């Protein structure tokens, strides 16, 4: 065993707060992601409600222009990077190893590092609220508005650095899951026997690996402009091109849309068969449609830029590519409908949310095709029609899909059922509130209401619809309250879930709820796409532990959070450096040392701390 050269000995205990801080267990990391995402969902939701109060009437003075601009910037940034992505990550983490029959991800400590970088980056960005003000340049951060000439406060620096740090964690997670899914499937689980959710996770992980570098580059260039006076985007100097930012941002930003939606598609593709009591229709087609969407997703970014003067050829090409992506998307919808055709449909809460996903996401897809038609886009771009469109995709799609996932897998994660009665009420309140909020936005867009305006005047005659929309937003908030009530109720007196409460077909339902630390006492051998439907032995109870006892799992580690802290504080040092050079440099030097020392400690950390107790237990 390697000599212990670390200052921090490898922890053994998984108890208490330190157990969570040092955990490398994919299930616990999944829960950390999920809880964090839910907290940020509440924050982003409150930001949305404040905006809706402001816009409920014309010439409102509830908040001022600067505050409103900060609200929509942080609402967008929060919902994309701190809610839907980590909520997806929560499901990847908790479920993918279970669904492919593995004991953990390929790199458990790297997995923990991804989480800590995400949460520290998110906290750093939100910390701007206390230091300066929330960022107010839009979640898309178009140059040159983001350069120091036009953004006087340091809030944009927090935005740049926060995103950058979250991006590092996300990219690491992308590699982790590609390697996990390609290498750690249970014997017999060929790729084409894998459930749809791990399939979509694999595709999303590839998307992350290829989409985040352009964002990293764009943020680095902007960082250099703001901190060191370079001239990539600042048009006051020669040679800068603000459209360079838009290209880099959307080369990231459009695949990002699929990073947000494909996990929900995976969830729905696994929920539908369970509650239709029959297999997914056209499994191969659904898998490949996902892959085609992801591939085409890299060739459509400039449809965010149809009005920037790209020229006729580029505009026509991107319009064609954008329409093409509608085909695999449509195919998925038809395959989902065909999955239900001939089934015996059980309208349990997860199924209701999955159905909400299919119908609402399809409407979002159809409005998307509308602005792929460039002439139509010249009227719709940057109006509320676009706001309506992408909320149908990201709320009607992603959030409904993820909520289906919450209701579907909550019993597996906690061992307790959620209330069907409250769940169904939650669905209907959310479904009605959602449509009240976002359906009229289509009309507002047609009537010319631009996005990102903190106010409008009486003569515009948008007041009635806006009031209606604002009421809808509060109904959505009410539905979220129902979810919280349901979770609290379940924690207090939820019925025991048992192994497989939905009589589902996939491997995660073949082990106890919640799953033991080591997941599978014996790694299962897979012989079909639906092991629990096709093999009676697996459907009843998990096989007993082998004679040598519990499988040996990786021990917890301090190093992931130490490295994440070092990296984040280097960014913090940069922010301090702007105010007080020497203090900033000192913080950068110390944090850099902590980060590098952390990596060193990580590399040479022994597999387990040597102790008499453990040696006795395992040898």
């Amino acid at each position, binding site marked *: 065993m390697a000599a212990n050269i670390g200052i921090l000995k490898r922890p053994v205990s998984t108890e208490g707060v330190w157990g969570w801080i040092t955990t490398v267990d994919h299930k616990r990391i999944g829960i950390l992601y999920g809880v964090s995402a839910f907290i940020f969902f509440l924050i982003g939701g409150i930001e949305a409600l404040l905006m809706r109060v402001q816009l409920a009437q014309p010439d409102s003075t509830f908040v001022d*222009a*600067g505050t409103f*601009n900060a609200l929509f910037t942080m609402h967008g940034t929060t919902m994309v990077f701190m809610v839907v992505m980590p909520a997806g990550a929560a499901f990847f983490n908790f479920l993918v190893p279970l669904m492919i029959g593995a004991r953990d991800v390929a790199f458990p400590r790297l997995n923990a590092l991804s989480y800590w970088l995400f949460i520290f980056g998110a906290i750093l960005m939100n910390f701007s609220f206390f230091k300066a003000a929330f960022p107010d340049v839009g979640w898309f951060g*178009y140059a*040159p*508005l983001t350069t120091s000439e*036009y953004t006087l406060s340091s809030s944009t620096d927090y935005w740049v650095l926060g995103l950058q740090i979250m991006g590092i964690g996300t990219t690491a997670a992308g590699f982790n899951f590609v390697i996990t899914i390609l290498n750690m499937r249970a014997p017999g689980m060929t790729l084409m026997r894998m459930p749809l959710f791990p399939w979509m996770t694999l595709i999303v992980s590839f998307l992350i690996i290829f989409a985040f570098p352009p964002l990293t580059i764009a943020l680095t260039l902007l960082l250099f402009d703001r901190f060191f006076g370079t001239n990539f985007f600042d*048009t006051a100097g020669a040679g*800068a091109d*603000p*459209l360079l930012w838009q290209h880099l941002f959307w080369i990231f930003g459009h695949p990002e849309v699929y990073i947000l939606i494909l996990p929900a598609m995976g969830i729905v593709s696994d929920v539908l068969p369970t509650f*239709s*009591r*029959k297999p997914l*229709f*056209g499994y191969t087609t659904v898998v490949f449609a996902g892959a085609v969407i992801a591939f085409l997703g890299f060739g459509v970014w400039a449809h965010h830029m149809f*009005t*920037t*003067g790209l020229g006729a050829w580029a505009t026509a090409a991107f*319009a*064609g590519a954008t*329409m093409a992506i509608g085909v695999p998307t449509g195919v998925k919808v038809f395959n989902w*409908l*065909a999955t239900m055709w*001939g*089934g*015996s*449909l*059980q*309208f349990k809460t997860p199924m209701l949310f999955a*159905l909400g996903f299919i119908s609402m996401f*399809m409407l979002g897809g159809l409005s998307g*095709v509308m602005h792929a*038609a460039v*002439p*139509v886009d*010249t009227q719709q*771009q940057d109006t509320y029609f676009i706001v309506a469109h992408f909320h149908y995709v990201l709320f009607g799609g992603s959030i409904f899909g993820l909520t289906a996932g919450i209701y579907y897998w909550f019993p597996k994660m906690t061992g307790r*059922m959620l209330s069907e*009665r409250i769940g169904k009420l939650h669905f209907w309140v959310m479904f*009605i509130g959602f449509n*009240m909020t976002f359906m*009229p936005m289509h*009309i507002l867009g047609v*009537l*010319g*209401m631009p*996005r990102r305006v903190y106010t409008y*005047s009486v*003569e515009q005659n948008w007041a009635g*619809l806006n009031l209606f929309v604002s009421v809808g937003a509060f109904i959505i908030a009410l539905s979220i309250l129902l979810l919280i009530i349901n979770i609290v109720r379940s924690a207090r007196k939820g019925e025991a879930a048992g192994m*497989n*409460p*939905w009589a589902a*077909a996939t491997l995660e339902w073949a082990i106890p709820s919640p799953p033991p630390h080591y997941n599978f006492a014996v790694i299962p051998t897979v012989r079909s796409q*639906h092991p629990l*439907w*096709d*093999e*009676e032995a697996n459907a009843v109870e998990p096989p007993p532990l082998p004679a040598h006892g519990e499988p040996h799992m990786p021990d917890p580690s301090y190093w992931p959070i130490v490295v994440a802290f070092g990296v984040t504080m280097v960014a913090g040092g940069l922010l301090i450096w702007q105010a007080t050079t020497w203090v900033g440099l000192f913080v950068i030097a110390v944090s850099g040392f902590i980060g590098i020392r952390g990596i060193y400690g990580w590399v040479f950390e022994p597999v387990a701390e040597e102790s008499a107790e453990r040696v006795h237990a395992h040898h």
Partner: protein
Amino acid sequence: MRNNRPTGAGNTNTVTTPTAHPQNLAATLRRLLYFALAAVALVAVFASCDTPLTTFEPRSDATQRVHTIYIFVIVAASIVGFLVLAAMAYILWKYRERPGHTAQQTHGNTTLEITWTVIPILILVAIAIPTIVWIAGTTAEPDEDALHIEAVGHQWWFEFRYSGLGPDGEDLVTANELRVPVGRQVAITLEAKDVIHSFWVPQLVGKTDMVPGRTNILEKFTPTEIGTFYGQCAEFCGSAHALMRFRVHVDSHADFDRWVENMNADPVPPEAGSVEARGATVFTNFCARCHTIYGVSTEEIGPNLTLFGDRATLGAGILDSTDENLKAWVSNIRDIKPVLDTTNAMPTFYVGDPLVDQLTEAQVDQVVAYLKSLKLR
């Protein structure tokens, strides 16, 4: 190995919860339909109001062309959406869980799947063709007698420069209210002074961005109706983005020519000793540092104010041009618009505090009277 795929009814492992009775489902669907109808009616009431930025009342050849495609696309998308939702509702009804009914274990059907791949392709091709034809049309050269204008976006107002129509064949410059003659093609190039803005007059022409360091070409358009049309900046451009609006006045040819002539004529100085004359002095001493009035001043930092008395609005189309509004604007722009204190921002002139005021209340009244007197002859 025995196939024990559970059916809905014979599923012993499921936690017992009340299953949806068909009657309940039907009632729910019916309630949902009523709700949707009520919502549509409500929306129709709201939408029937007069909304000056509407994209659905084209008043130029360009927006008429877009409108035709817009309607086609809406109809196509609505039909597809309706059919799919109807199919879904049918499936949910027909295959709901009920006693004596078990799920058919189908896995796929290649013919079906090819069919529903090909149908979307055909629909999308039908949408792509008019799109591409339209894009090709935008590259056409402007008409020979087109009116050439350069529009420049500033934080947060619009500058309009008519090529060759000004004094000595220079540009004729105005701000925030564009005047064009009816029935003549308008060819506008777009630029920006600071950040990215976007030029959009929904009834006359779709939007194109104004990008600093670039010259973009707006789609050519020929207004078909005399009247005043609303424009708005459509790209987020900082704190006062919401208040960056403008107007386009489509005039008769005679009115337009008269306006151009008046813009070029030296203004008649106000009668000596009048309120307007004292206002002119205030203008020269303060406002002229940034604003041009042809024949009076030449600085172009702020909007050109020639013939200001004829404008319908002030502050980039956000307020009616009344005496009270103008007085408030001159006194303290910060009460009205969230401007940043950059070098190009208009100063605060009067807040009633002698220590910070640059003008007296009376001087504000005088300069307002002067500006309102700058009218067409």
